């Protein structure tokens, strides 16, 4: 189906992405490319276009629907039955050998499948030991993947597997944008003619790549250059030696592509721009990890800590400040800014409140009547990724695996009823499905005028962002609701994307009255909805407010309305945390009352500024009574 591939060379702009892709095919030791970018930035068009400029490699597509057997390979039941002996069937990893393995939306890939791919990517060998098949073959491939950070982040282990990382940005220039439209129209009108038109250019790039590959081995790297690479990697605080080796391999590929016989400072610098962005970040230190695991309060943390965990995914372009790489969620000076008394406070990072874990392992779920709900185990949910020998009654048969198990014995079994295959109980296999049960943490943030006093909103934003980051590391879903003036709004749908959440929060204006009940009602609806969509989800509410409700919802009493909804949330068995933002000499303590009605863990914002409070959700059940004293 190559006839419908948009030619690589006809893609306007995206020079960095193009270069990264070309380098990865010139020198497989570079270790593949991760392309991130928003919607409609030609990410996958670029990858598919590679087919035009690389002649000796296929692009093997790893679809999100893949199951384990098709990935690693295994027994071929058809051949086994027909020939009466074990036949192997190669999986995708075998097909990928010597080729390009392409994963679109890699951040959405099932973790189990991702781990299998990673193992092989690291070792270069696929060892299959399953279903009576022993198989071992080489599987060296160039791993290329795309992702949209707005859809969720990539696990650090996966991130590290990619040699290079680049971001695809939309073109900002009018003439270039117009050219993009023009070429796309021309292509769609007559793909064959369009491809013909660009053939010469494609061929010349393909030739250049071939030549670079041939000369790669002869590219010199002096001792000074090696030292520079090492210093560069160390400067970015990269662990291990992989970063500097990748910088050197990338620089060699760059030199070869430029037709140079020697790596210079220039290539090292350029290479670092591709190699370091996704590595130049500090993982959780051992000490912090331990604190989290022990569930104990740690010593006061470095005030800048919130900034160190660098999760925003950007290219580390030397000439730009990383912050500027993220387009503002709300561009200044456009159509907005109608209301008078509002301000947008920047988040004060550095405050840190962590929520740990989620619900206990065997979480009980309650119906609105308070009774524990039965598990929905008889309704198969989630992605089928693998299979197992069933324990007990089978209600989710893995037919393909069962057939493979039965295939080996068909010679010995008598065939009856005109069936070709006789399946016996010991053959039965059941499906293992992706467990996507996660906690859905919904933040309900007060953005009313009273929150704006004394830069309180900055502290609130900082705290919420730090919690969001923590939630992300634990693969939870987050959502944000804000309320002010007369209504509540959804800032962010349930998502795993922290970047999006941060952007929403940063631009959240403060001002107006306090429709607390409306905020809580929206949270209530949202959580019920989340459960409809995924009955196994564990909703968790975080209310950030001073509780000074002054907009009623259905009665005349704004606080009574808020409490009424709070009690309904509690009746749903939804757990919650109230972060009280009230400060000053005169305190009304309303947020605390709300916390009591919610049966929530209660924390005061001014308590977390001076020292770190570790909130362990798993201990909430036992600690709520204490905190109420």
């Amino acid at each position, binding site marked *: *189906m190559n*006839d*419908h591939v948009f030619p690589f060379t006809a893609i306007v702009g995206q020079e960095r992405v193009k270069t990264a892709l070309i380098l990865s095919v010139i020198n497989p030791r570079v270790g593949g490319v991760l392309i991130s970018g*928003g*919607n*409609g*930035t030609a990410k*996958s068009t670029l990858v598919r276009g590679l087919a035009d400029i690389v002649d000796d490699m296929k692009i093997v*597509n*790893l*679809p*999100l*629907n*893949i*199951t384990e*057997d*098709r*990935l690693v390979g295994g027994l071929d*039941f*058809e051949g086994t039955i027909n020939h009466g002996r074990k036949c192997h069937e190669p999986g*995708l990893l075998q097909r990928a050998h010597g080729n390009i393995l392409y994963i679109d*939306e890699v951040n959405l890939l099932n973790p189990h499948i991702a781990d299998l791919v990673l193992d092989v990517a690291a070792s270069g060998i696929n060892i299959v030991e399953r279903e009576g098949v022993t198989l071992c073959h080489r599987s060296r491939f160039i791993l290329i993947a795309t992702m949209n950070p707005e*859809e969720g982040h990539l696990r650090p282990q996966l991130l590290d597997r990619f040699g290079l990382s680049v971001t695809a940005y*939309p073109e900002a220039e*009018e*003439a270039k*944008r*117009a050219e993009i*439209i023009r070429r*796309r*129209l021309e292509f*769609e009108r007559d793909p064959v003619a369009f491809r013909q038109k660009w053939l010469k250019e494609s061929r010349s790039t393909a030739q250049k790549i071939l030549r670079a590959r041939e000369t790669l081995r002869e590219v010199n790297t002096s001792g000074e250059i090696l030292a520079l690479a090492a210093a560069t990697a160390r400067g970015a605080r990269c662990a291990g030696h992989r970063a500097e080796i990748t910088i050197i391999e990338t620089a060699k590929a760059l030199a070869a592509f430029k037709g140079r016989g020697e790596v210079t400072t220039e290539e090292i610098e350029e290479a670092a721009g591709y190699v370091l962005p996704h590595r130049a970040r500090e993982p959780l230190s051992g000490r912090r990890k331990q604190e989290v695991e022990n569930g104990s309060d740690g010593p006061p943390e470095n005030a800048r800590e919130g900034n160190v965990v660098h999760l925003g995914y950007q290219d580390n372009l030397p000439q730009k400040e990383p912050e500027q790489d993220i387009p503002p969620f*709300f*561009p200044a000076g456009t*159509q*907005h800014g109608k*209301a008078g008394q509002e301000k947008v406070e920047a988040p004060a990072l550095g405050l840190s409140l962590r929520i740990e874990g989620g619900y206990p392992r065997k979480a009980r779920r309650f119906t609105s009547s308070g009774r524990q709900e039965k598990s929905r185990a008889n309704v198969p949910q*989630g*992605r*089928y990724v693998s299979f197992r020998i069933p324990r007990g009654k089978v209600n989710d048969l*893995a*037919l*393909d695996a069962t*057939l493979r198990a039965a295939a080996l014995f*068909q010679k010995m079994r008598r065939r009856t009823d005109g*069936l*070709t*295959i006789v*399946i016996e109980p010991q053959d039965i296999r059941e499906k293992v499905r*992706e467990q*996507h049960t996660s906690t859905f943490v919904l933040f309900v943030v007060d953005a009313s005028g009273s929150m704006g006093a004394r830069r309180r909103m900055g502290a609130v934003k900082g705290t919420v962002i730090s919690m969001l980051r923590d939630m992300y590391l634990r693969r939870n879903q987050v959502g944000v609701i*804000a309320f002010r003036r007369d209504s509540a*709004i*959804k800032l962010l*749908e349930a*998502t795993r994307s922290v970047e999006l959440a941060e952007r*929403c929060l940063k*631009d959240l204006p403060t001002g107006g009255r306090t429709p607390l009940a409306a905020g809580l009602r929206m949270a209530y609806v*949202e959580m019920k909805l989340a459960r409809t*969509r995924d009955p196994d989800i564990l909703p968790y509410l975080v209310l950030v407010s001073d509780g000074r409700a002054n907009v009623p919802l259905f009665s005349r009493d704004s606080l009574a309305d808020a409490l009424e909804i709070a009690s309904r949330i509690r009746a749903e068995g939804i757990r919650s945390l109230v972060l009280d933002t009230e400060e000053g000499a005169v305190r009304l303590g309303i947020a605390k009352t709300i916390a009591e009605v919610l049966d929530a863990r209660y924390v005061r914002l001014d308590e977390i500024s001076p020292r770190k409070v570790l909130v362990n959700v798993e201990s909430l059940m036992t600690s709520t009574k204490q905190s109420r004293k």
Partner: protein
Amino acid sequence: MSLSASSGSNQYIYPFTAIVGQEMMKKALILNVINPMIGGVLIRGEKGTAKSTAVRSLAELLPERDSVEGCDFNCDPDDPARYCEYCLRLAAEKPLSRVKTKVQVINLPLSATEDRIAGTLDIEHAIKKGEKRFEPGILAQANRNILYVDEVNLLDDHLVDILLDAAAMGINVVEREGVSFMHPSRFVLVGTMNPEEGNLRPQLTDRFGLVVDVTGEDDIPSRIEIIRRRLAFENDPEAFITDFAQAQQELTARIEQAKDLLKEVHCADDMLNLAARIAIRLEVDGHRADITMIKTAMAHAALEGRREVTEDDLITAARLCLPHRMRRRPFDEGLNPDEIEKIIREVMQKI
């Protein structure tokens, strides 16, 4: 005869031309038929606003086209580059036989499982014959048809992923349960949603070429007319359909002409630049907005019987393409089509 339904539970399909009001929705659907590359329509609105009726009626209106006879994937005999594996093999031996087929509306129910959508191992065939065979799923049926997802915002995340995977390339790649298969899957995606029940993932929103908001008709005469027609249809569907036969035929002919004319529609550089400028001014995400805007404007020009894209075509297109593609600020209502038009007119003034 051709106006009666070929299948489905309802024997009769309410004529498209008999739908009262909802002009933007009707226009959006028609433009997608004229150019299926526009990328579908997302219809937002409360329940009971005739959304699914409109989609089904539209399919009924469309003329038949050529398909490869007996192909599960509804391959286009004139597009060998997109043949499925079977057609490829068959075509190497002898010319493929053709058959006329109608455009179908393929439903993707929220309860659908992953294997039903992507397709999977044919269980019966495996047990009876001991052979692996691919059993086509919904994405196979959807090829060259309309894929309709009611309440698309409630669709499970991992099903959305599969849908997006196929939509991105127009090809469904299946690597599951012992089968490895690839087939074309290019469809006009039509989704409906009630925004009160939650939004769509940004990625899925962006996949929809056009978005229309539908509301119930407000004015009394329209409401009366809706009821009157509905009653007439239920009372005597055949007579009702006959009453609208002429209008239906005219619209069918107009769509056919527009499809032919589209090949000749020209879009001047000024218009391309204007589209780019609008996209920059409104700070849309990515490039899909500009491209879709122009494609839609061209389809609109063709529908109006013109060979040249005008500013009015572009404005109509922008109203349909842009509202869902702009980033929103918290507590900001976003822009409605009228506000978008106002800004575009300002942009035009500055030239």
